[in-house]
């Protein structure tokens, strides 16, 4: 592959849509999967849009993340991380685990503390072409835990767990999942909750 100099030139007007204005927030349900379970060979991505994402065989599956309330995943953000050769982005996903106990510790908290993940969240703002609906965090370098706390009298977690996952130094500011329509995209994401065949 020949050496190249990346073209970082503006390619679109800056502004919003009056008919379809930007709105804050996300919906209550997201999807999380292990970074290593993704079938990278089968991943189909054009620019910043992934149209096909599957998991490796061997019983791999994604899991649902549900955070109730009017402002779920509060704290989720993308921020510039300046660097020597190319500025990148630190992406943060904040979630609350409204549960506790030995199973939660073993099956959720301990793995989150030590694993690497990809999370797909649904934005309330879908964008004019609907492609903004499902946003992927962790696809490039993986999300790892930077903070996990359990405060018994916390009003934010009702005594559950507050988890912060971060993808550090991701080259892209945003990667999205879109497969022909929102309904088809949602169906495809829901199907990831089914384990792959044991081959």
């Amino acid at each position: 592959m020949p050496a190249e100099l990346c073209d970082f030139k503006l390619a679109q007007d800056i502004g919003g849509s009056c008919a379809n204005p930007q709105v804050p927030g996300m919906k209550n349900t997201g999807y999380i999967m292990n970074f290593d379970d993704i079938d990278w060979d089968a991943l189909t991505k054009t620019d910043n849009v992934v149209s096909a994402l599957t998991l490796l065989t061997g019983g791999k599956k994604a899991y649902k993340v549900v955070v109730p309330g009017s402002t779920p995943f509060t704290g989720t953000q993308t921020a510039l991380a300046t660097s020597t050769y190319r500025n990148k982005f630190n992406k943060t996903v904040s979630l609350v685990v409204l549960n506790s106990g030995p199973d939660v510790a073993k099956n959720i908290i301990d793995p989150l503390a030590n694993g690497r993940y990809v999370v797909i969240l649904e934005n309330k703002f879908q964008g004019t072409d609907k492609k903004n609906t499902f946003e992927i965090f962790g696809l490039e370098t993986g999300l790892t835990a930077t903070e996990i706390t359990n405060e018994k009298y916390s009003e934010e977690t009702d005594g559950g767990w507050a988890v912060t996952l971060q993808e550090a130094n991701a080259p892209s500011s945003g990667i999205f999942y879109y497969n022909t329509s929102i309904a088809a995209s949602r169906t495809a994401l829901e199907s990831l909750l089914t384990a792959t065949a044991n081959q």
Partner: protein
Amino acid sequence: MPKKANYVLKPGIVLQEPGKNKFYALNNCPDEVAERYLAKFPQHISMFEVYPTDWESRVKARKEGTVSVPTYDELKAEVEKLTAEAEGKDGEITALTEQVNTMKADLEAAKDEADALRKEVVAATDTVEKGKDEAQAEVKALHKENDELKAEVERLTAALEKALKAKAGKGTKEAPKDEAPKEAPTAETSTEEGK
């Protein structure tokens, strides 16, 4: 019973036929949709987790239009066959249910019998215990009687010894030989003495 899908899409894959707004995921993709799609994009067989081993010949048949469509009579016969099978299964279920009910009734009867036997054992145990107590009381009474008799024997023995000793003591003081034994006073004598 729903038919098992011949073509199952991999999790995460959604199949949408070009130009159509319906899409399929996992095992809800009909054979004809899968084969029509594969006829156009055979390389996309990798989208399927499960597919028939003869998928290529099926796709070819679908493409050439040589896939046989069942006739009305064939479908009717199939429906009748499945209905008969279902009725057969219903009969089996009824028979098994009756068997289960009979076994349940037998079990209840056995439980009742066991309860009755348990009660008999309890009653017999009570009787034995009661008999035991009575026997113990009788033994106690006999022991008491025995002790009383022993005491009476001792008392009589002591009295006998005493009497024998007294008799032996009297025998050493013998009366003189010429003395006539005193006669017992007769009625005349006693009356003369009385005057």
